[in-house]
């Protein structure tokens, strides 16, 4: 990957995010742009798009600003779950490892059940091709 070339206009994307919020705090439109960035990240991962290091940092910083500072999403648990957060995180990681092993062994029904059960408690697993 050439780290000096971007195939996506990050500055234009940032402008659109602010314009959405300046238009009567239109957070649904803002969120659609954030999802566009999520798609971009997946495309970068699969090699369809690329960003320069500088644009990548700007994208990351802007995503953090809008997701956490403005929309108020938090990667940290609220006070009620603080005590249990690390334990839950550890257990979920163990379950994910078990599922990865199941997929490796081609136990599809078993791995699907794990995915569905995790979804019931709000853990969404996003499988990508060739990523066991």
């Amino acid at each position, binding site marked *: 990957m050439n780290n000096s070339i971007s195939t996506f206009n990050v500055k234009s994307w940032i*402008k659109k995010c*602010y314009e959405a*919020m*300046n*238009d*009567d*705090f239109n*957070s649904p439109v803002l*969120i659609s742009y954030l999802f566009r960035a999520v798609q971009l990240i997946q495309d970068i991962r699969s090699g369809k798009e690329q960003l320069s290091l500088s644009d990548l940092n700007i994208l990351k910083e802007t995503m953090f*600003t809008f997701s956490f*500072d*403005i*929309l*108020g*999403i*938090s990667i940290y648990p*609220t*006070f*009620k779950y603080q005590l249990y957060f690390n334990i839950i995180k550890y257990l979920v990681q163990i379950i994910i490892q078990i599922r990865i092993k199941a997929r490796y062994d081609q136990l599809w029904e078993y791995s699907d059940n794990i995915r569905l059960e995790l*979804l*019931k*408690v*709000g853990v969404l697993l996003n499988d990508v091709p060739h990523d066991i």
Partner: protein
Amino acid sequence: MHDYSHNIRIYNSIKKKKELFIPINKSYIGIYVCGPTVYRKIHLGNCRTFIYFDVVFRYLKSIGFNVRYVRNITDVGHLENDREDKIYNKARIEDIEPMEIAQKYTLYFHNILNLFNTLPPSIEPIASGHIIEQIDLINKLIDKGVAYKVNGSVYFDVKFYNNNNNYGLFSNRFKIANLLANRIQNKYQIEKKNPHDFALWKIKNYKHIMKWSSPWGYGFPGWHIECTAMSIKYIGDIFDIHGGGIDLKFPHHECEIAQFKSVFNKNIVSFWMHTNILTLNGNKMSKSTGNVLLPNEIINGKTFFLKRSFSPYVIRFFF
């Protein structure tokens, strides 16, 4: 970073269109949002308003404004049927003191908003802590002839106000105002000059323990006067944004505008912002009809409306 603070457009409920937002003061943006009446658990529809204004608060700060965000707690004065305080009624049902009710549901309100990761407002005044300010404002309204005393209570005289103003213009409730004018007064309204006059101060019920001394005897303040008194005290006699749920547009905000205009002879709020109602299965989410979701029910998944639980952040994301 590019300065995005100069071209914010906000839908102004009083003008019924989007307008360019120009802050009144250079030092800060003043926002007043009507908080909850703390007599029961807030439902998801209530949360939506506070999460929405949390995003407004966060955004304005993030683009460089100083923001003074005031959100009150109504712990006295919200009447049912023009007669009794909601908190007092709930205290009778739960067999505890009214202030225990207020404390219990204020804590619940804070806990729920913490789950949703809302920032605390800059100031969170409570109505019962501002009785002196409310009495002072009522006195001003009496002095201007737009309020009258009767049997230890004080009412806002809507007919007098309408000599130079249009009560109902903001909420487009002329028809309802007319209907109210024509309806027969019930026994609790009989002392008013007109049925749509609203209480600024109510004489205490003989068993009422939430009462304060006033020039008109022991009693308690009406609901509409508290927000007017507290907004003026904390963000001044002209400020940028007054917000709340759309269900507050009438009568609460209509009455507030009448009080503001009567005291200051002008609209003191630049922008009125209202959040729309939240619907569930196509109908308004409402505690009284049972068509309601409590935040905890979604977070722990224990409701027949949903098949699974959702994180507070997922809920927040869609507000």
